[in-house]
């Protein structure tokens, strides 16, 4: 029987992408717990498996065997669909991410656009879940999530537009291809295009924290204020899927930052570029995200909006104008 190799390739990539997303979501929980523990002078999970490495499996089994409670009075359709709406777009985004010059599920010409389109579905999922669960804390949380995402998508996308102008393409593989040959070629140090490039990276990183609802911008599930925010009414795997979606989004955010600013799979010294460099950079960014969470207290909601509208958006526009001027002049 003859099977089209293209179909085999598709199946292999689908399985690979889902496995990568799910494994990351599971083991980032382990990483977060271990890292938090060491920051706080504890040991962290250590009972299940060596260094507690099997802890995510046990957590997963626990969540799956728990009863999925659908409280009385909720909108059952929205309540059940919301976690999936967070999880699926996050996994779909992996399709467009090039891990190395050969390892990419679909080399799309509009890869960057696809990722940001999927990323904006995330907030819809949170909003529907919070609204559907008919909980006051959840609704407050949903209102916060929406205005937070609106506020932070603007500087993020303006920064991305700046990069697209520099690269002249939205194909992620090509964007990385332009940065090959050592760290002085990476966009973060591309001072010839705009002297504000390192600042642009910081803006992108802060926006990524806010987009993925990570501390110090975790307004959505500010547990000392809103109990568990949008997830208050969720139990068992409903909560688990939200949780995995959140971690998958962090992986996506770190990957995009790696591709746009840190040269993707390029080696800092121009030697042996490959998927390992991509993973090192990505996990370093994720490590930093977790590090920030366990160090800083939470900002307030108005502090967060002030930061976006008064600082990040003006700077990112200045960077955009500066870059276009520099591109025109030189």
């Amino acid at each position, binding site marked *: 029987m003859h099977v089209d190799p293209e179909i085999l390739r598709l199946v292999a990539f689908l399985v690979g992408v889902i496995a990568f997303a799910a494994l990351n979501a599971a083991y980032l929980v382990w990483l977060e717990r271990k890292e*938090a523990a060491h*920051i*706080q*002078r*504890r040991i962290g999970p250590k009972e299940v498996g060596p260094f507690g490495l099997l802890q995510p499996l046990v957590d997963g089994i626990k969540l799956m065997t728990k009863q999925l409670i659908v409280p009385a009075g909720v909108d059952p359709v929205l309540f059940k669909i919301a976690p999936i709406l967070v999880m699926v777009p996050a996994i779909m985004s992996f399709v467009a991410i090039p891990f190395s010059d050969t390892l990419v599920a679909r080399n799309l010409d509009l890869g960057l656009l696809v990722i940001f389109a999927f990323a904006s579905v995330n907030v819809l999922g949170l909003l529907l879940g919070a609204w559907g669960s008919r909980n*006051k*804390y959840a609704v*407050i949380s949903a*209102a916060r999530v929406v205005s937070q995402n609106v506020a932070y998508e603007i500087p993020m996308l303006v920064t991305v537009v700046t990069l697209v102008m520099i690269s002249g393409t939205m194909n992620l593989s090509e964007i990385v291809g332009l940065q090959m040959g050592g760290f002085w070629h990476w966009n973060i140090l591309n001072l010839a295009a705009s002297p504000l490039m390192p600042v642009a990276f910081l803006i992108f990183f802060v926006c990524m924290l806010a987009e993925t609802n990570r*501390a*110090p911008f*975790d307004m959505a599930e*500010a*547990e*000392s*204020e809103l*109990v568990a925010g949008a997830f208050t009414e969720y139990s068992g795997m409903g909560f688990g899927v939200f949780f995995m979606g959140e971690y998958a989004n962090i992986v996506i955010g770190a990957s995009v930052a790696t591709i746009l600013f840190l040269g993707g799979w390029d080696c800092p010294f121009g030697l042996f570029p490959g998927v390992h460099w991509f993973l090192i950079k990505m996990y370093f960014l994720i490590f930093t995200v977790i590090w920030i969470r*366990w*160090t*800083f*207290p*939470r*900002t*307030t*909601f*108005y*502090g967060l909006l002030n930061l976006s509208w008064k600082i990040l958006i003006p700077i990112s526009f200045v960077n955009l104008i500066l870059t276009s001027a520099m591109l025109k002049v030189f």
Partner: protein
Amino acid sequence: MSALIQSQANETFVLNLGPQHPATHGVLRVKLTMDGEYIVEAEPVLGYIHRMHEKMGENRTWAQFLPNTGRMDYLHALAFNHGYVALVERAAGITVPERAEYLRVITTELNRVSSHLLWFGAFILDLGGFSPLLYAFDDREHILDLLESVTGSRLTYCYFRFGGVYNDIDDNFVPGARAFIKRLRERMPMYHNLVTKNIILMKRLQEVGPISAEMCRKYGATGPVCRGSGINFDVRKHEPYSIYPEMDFEVPVYEQGDSMARYMVRMDEIEQSLRIVEQALDKLPEGPVMAEKVPKILKPPKGDYYHAVETARGSFGVRAVSDGGNIPYRLKLRSPTFSNLSLFGEACRGMLLPDALALMGSLDLVIPEIDR
């Protein structure tokens, strides 16, 4: 259409904060009337952990009530012990040996430091910073070990007796306490660098949740809450008891009245308490730790007695009416946090929910002490 918009503008909803909520640190319920995220009105609802301590006092002998005092404010149990014990001693005319008074002050002040450290960690946790809690607990653990070696318990102490303390310190206590003072003094700059000077924390606390001196007087707020609003009042200084007049310490007072002022008052008080402990350790006299001839069955003469002490949260007053029997006729406890919480309803009006919770955290609530 315009009617629709108008009705929406006036629309408020009721949000139940607690009795099970991470920010209330216990079974406190606050009924909030909210306009969006703004608080229109807040009404604390008490009584979820009411145990009738005052009524229990009327049903048991003077000595039998003593362990109850440690169960009210479990974080500064020794000060509550001290208030009750000093009251009964005043009523029955018992003189306490000097060494016992010194031991009382040393242990009470160490307990105050442990209470402030726990508040520090829990307060930053309310603001979303997780890690300082564990560091504060690490330091607090040393105090608990020290106090365990003296009192035999780690949380709800019952160390003081009418006429002294029940147990003398062992040989390791004095060097251990000195080592702890040195250790905490070395670590306080770390807390200030990591937490106090953090820009996010400063923005969350400065000019947030102002409490005026008038409001403090109106509601009878004491302790760090009133000292953060510019009222210089500390029972240890202004109605001195025990050996506090012999000690050289300052009362930190901040004028601003915001959450940051209350935060700074407590952080400064840690240092002042360490100073008191240090001096008391230097001066610690030899001698008995228990007065002789304390009657087994205590019968204070007929009368009306009052004694106040300064706890970590403010002034704790005990009033007892004795009819000359072995059981108090009436026992009235004035606990500091009850008054401090009472001003929350007025203070948080018009605030955003996260700011109001920062304000609530800065009041340092211990719910079993409010409900008694």
